[in-house]
């Protein structure tokens, strides 16, 4: 033994000498050494896990992507607002209702701003919310199943962009209107926009145990464009801040006509006051029509219900509900620091960055330091509320996030950089270029009371030459910076799906332990479940045929079906009997006019097949499940309409 140890230490010693001399040789190439040190910091050895989850909005893909940090690896794309043939989302009978709206079934949307649920202003990792911009909706996604559980449509709104941001105990998820519209919708000349169009701000309550969403109330604001928002926290808990542009109320050529005012507003909404007004009955009930879609984990099935009314508050008639904070030049991002004191207005056409003070705002309200009003809503005096200005930090500020040490990080679209500056002194500390034209940025927990200030992710709009070209359409991209030191360090580029508008990050330790492994078969309450092969059957109801089918390694039951006729509607209700982690099965049949099913252990899903031709048609397992996956197949015999062949089904002749 002793000899073996000596040999081991000797060889380790020799190896280290070689390693050191190797370093010396590389010393000449500075960038090489830097690159390798960055590589080490983003390298996750095979089999090990990332430190953070990053949930990146899928932008015009309508979905939500789950990445790991610092590796940037993509783990899953969660279908939210767009159909996903891979997972049968919006294709199987169970999830079609999720995409129902007052306009009918919609297969696509534009997803923007994910936000993780919070308790006491800190991430709690239970749910993540995201908004659909085009047909206004908010979705709630479970961070146990990583599936969309609920979608609620927002009436009286359009361009659902200043959404979906949540209050510090997840009391509300908030949705604003970017494109003001006539409320209620009616036939009227577009040129009569001014004074007639409205921008609704919707407060959607979230059940604290189960997450169920309900529109608690809408505040019917003047017809500006409500661009982005963030909740107050800590001392400013109870308030919500929305940036506005187009306070000019232009309805055409907005790039010029909505850029005329020196200052637009941040709308400060006192939602605790709103609650009081609701309690006091100071609301109007408006007729509405909007879809509320809920996925039930026990029945594995979604239902869509149309809601018919909404409570509306008028800020002109309700004093103390809303104040306007003048903010220069069409502010975009509206960000609140971890203490809740500073409200940053990222004036996207301004050369400097305006920061308001919540304390000063309170004082100005008390002392009624108003510079007039807009549609009955008081405008606070700019100098009375201004905390400070970051002078000439860059061009085109869009968004700001925070670390836990009193620093803020702002993205600049036009000058394509991230700038680090200090709260209170308003001094610029550091700047780093982005490649290229950065939009949002994300620090895990960076919009909560407790940021995890280790990494910063810049979400870029343009990539040009950063990756291998893929024709005219190239990927969007994220860039990872280390922000633990005084200077930011660029560590990694990685491609993203769609256009990542915003992202939300959280420590893996907050979410990973709760991730579900399987659905328990005994809890399955799907109306067409077959919990064992004994329960499988085929039932005809006129032209509808219901196949109660099971799948387990490596066969379907039944796998031979006869007595189906041309013109039938065949419902395959397929239950995965597996109760082992990571053993999904898939199924599809030749000529099916829909997607495959991808069924997790213990789950039941349904697809519809309308056979058009006589013959014997195979179906098979579409997800490589086992050594005998290739054998996991079956046949359906389709006979002419007039045929008398009896309905029968079997597995291995039984």
């Amino acid at each position, binding site marked *: 033994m002793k000899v073996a140890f000596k040999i081991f230490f000797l060889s380790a010693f020799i190896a280290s000498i070689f390693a050191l001399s190797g370093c010396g040789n590389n010393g000449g190439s500075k960038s090489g050494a830097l690159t390798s040190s960055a590589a080490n910091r983003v390298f996750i050895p095979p089999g090990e896990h990332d430190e953070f989850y990053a949930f990146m909005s899928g932008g015009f893909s309508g979905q939500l992507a789950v990445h790991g940090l610092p590796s940037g690896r993509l783990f899953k794309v969660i279908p939210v607002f767009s159909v996903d043939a891979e997972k049968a989302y919006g294709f199987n009978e169970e999830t079609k209702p999720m995409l129902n709206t007052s306009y009918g079934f919609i297969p696509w949307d534009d997803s923007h701003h994910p936000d993780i649920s919070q308790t006491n202003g800190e991430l709690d990792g239970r749910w993540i919310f995201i908004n659909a911009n085009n047909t206004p909706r908010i979705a709630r996604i479970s961070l146990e199943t990583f599936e969309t559980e609920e979608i609620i449509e927002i009436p009286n709104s359009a361009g659902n962009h200043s959404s979906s941001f949540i209050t510090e105990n997840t009391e509300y998820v908030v949705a604003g209107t970017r494109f003001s519209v006539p409320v209620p919708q009616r036939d009227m000349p577009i040129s009569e926009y001014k004074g007639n169009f409205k921008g609704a701000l919707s407060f959607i309550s979230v059940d604290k145990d189960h997450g169920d969403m309900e529109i608690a109330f809408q505040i019917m604001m003047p017809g500006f464009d409500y661009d982005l928002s963030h909740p107050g926290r800590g001392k400013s808990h109870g308030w919500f801040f929305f940036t506005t542009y187009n306070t000019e109320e232009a309805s055409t050529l907005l790039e010029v006509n909505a850029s005329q005012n020196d200052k637009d507003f941040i709308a400060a909404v006192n939602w605790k006051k709103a609650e009081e007004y609701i309690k006091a009955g100071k609301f109007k009930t408006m007729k509405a029509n909007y879809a509320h879609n809920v996925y039930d984990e026990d029945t594995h099935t979604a239902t869509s219900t149309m809601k018919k009314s909404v409570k509306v508050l008028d800020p002109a008639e309700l004093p103390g509900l809303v104040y306007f904070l003048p903010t220069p030049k069409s502010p975009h991002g509206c960000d609140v620091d971890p203490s809740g004191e500073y409200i940053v207005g990222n004036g996207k056409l301004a050369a400097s960055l305006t920061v308001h003070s919540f304390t000063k705002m309170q004082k100005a309200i008390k002392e009624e330091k108003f510079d007039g009003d807009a549609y009955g809503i008081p405008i606070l005096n700019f100098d009375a509320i201004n905390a400070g200005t970051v002078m000439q930090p860059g061009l085109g500020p869009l968004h700001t996030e925070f670390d836990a040490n009193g620093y803020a990080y702002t993205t600049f679209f036009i000058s394509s950089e991230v700038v680090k500056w200090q709260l209170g002194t308003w001094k610029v500390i550091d700047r780093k270029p982005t490649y290229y034209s950065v939009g949002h940025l994300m620090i895990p927990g960076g919009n909560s009371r407790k940021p995890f200030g280790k990494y910063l992710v810049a979400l870029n709009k343009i990539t040009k030459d950063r990756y291998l070209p893929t024709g005219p359409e190239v990927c969007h991209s994220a860039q990872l910076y280390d922000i633990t030191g005084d200077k930011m360090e660029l560590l990694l580029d990685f491609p993203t799906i769609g256009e990542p508008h915003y992202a939300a990050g959280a420590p893996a330790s907050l979410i990973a332990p709760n991730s579900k492994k399987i659905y328990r078969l005994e809890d399955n309450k799907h109306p067409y479940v077959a919990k064992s092969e004994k329960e499988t059957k085929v039932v005809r109801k006129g032209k509808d045929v219901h196949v109660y089918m099971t799948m387990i*390694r490596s066969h379907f039951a039944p796998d031979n079906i006869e007595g189906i006729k041309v013109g039938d509607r065949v419902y395959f209700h397929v239950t995965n009997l597996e*109760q*082992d982690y990571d053993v999904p099965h898939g199924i599809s049949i030749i000529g099916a006019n829909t997607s495959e099913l991808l069924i997790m252990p213990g789950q039941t899903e349904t697809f519809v097949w309308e056979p058009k031709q006589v013959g014997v048609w195979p179906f098979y397992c579409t997800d490589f499940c*086992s*050594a*005998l996956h290739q054998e996991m197949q079956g046949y359906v015999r389709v006979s002419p309409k007039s045929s008398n062949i009896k309905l029968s089904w079997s597995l291995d002749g039984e």
Partner: protein
Amino acid sequence: MKLSKILMIAAAILPLFLFVFPMWNITLEAPQYPIPLGIDISLNKMEGANEGDIQNIDLMNHYVGMKPLPTEMKEFDIFPIVIISMSLLGLIFAFIGNKKLYIVWFVLMAILGTAGMYDFYLWLYDYGHNLDPKAAIKMPGQAYMPPVLGSKQILNFTAHSYPMLGSIFLFVGVCLSPVAFYVALKEERKK
């Protein structure tokens, strides 16, 4: 009360812990199972070490033609009766207080224990050798019998077979009876 009697009472009672704790565990490790599969064998049932393990072991084993793990076995009916009877007998012997009876109990338990292990071996042998001739995967000469005690490589799996808490209580109980005998002997000499 005499120490020997207390020891014999303990000896007779300890096997009853088999009703609380499983007696044996078989664990199967493979690269695809970062959380290994396991069977906990108790006096009257078999359970997965984790929920779903029994089904998952059966699913794997059916490819090579092994039978599903039994939910019913005659042993599940017999073993509890034997253990209760032997505990009662041990208690009766303790109250009679005849040290020779302690040795009788020890010998009986040793015989029954050996018989139990032999029965376990027979079941494992049948489980690993008696294969469905229609199995999808046939390996000439390959048997899938887990070890009675110890660890063994079976194709891509490493199988571990070791006693659990219940058996340890049983073992300690059985060993206590000769100790009781020895203590009783000393107590008599002191007189």
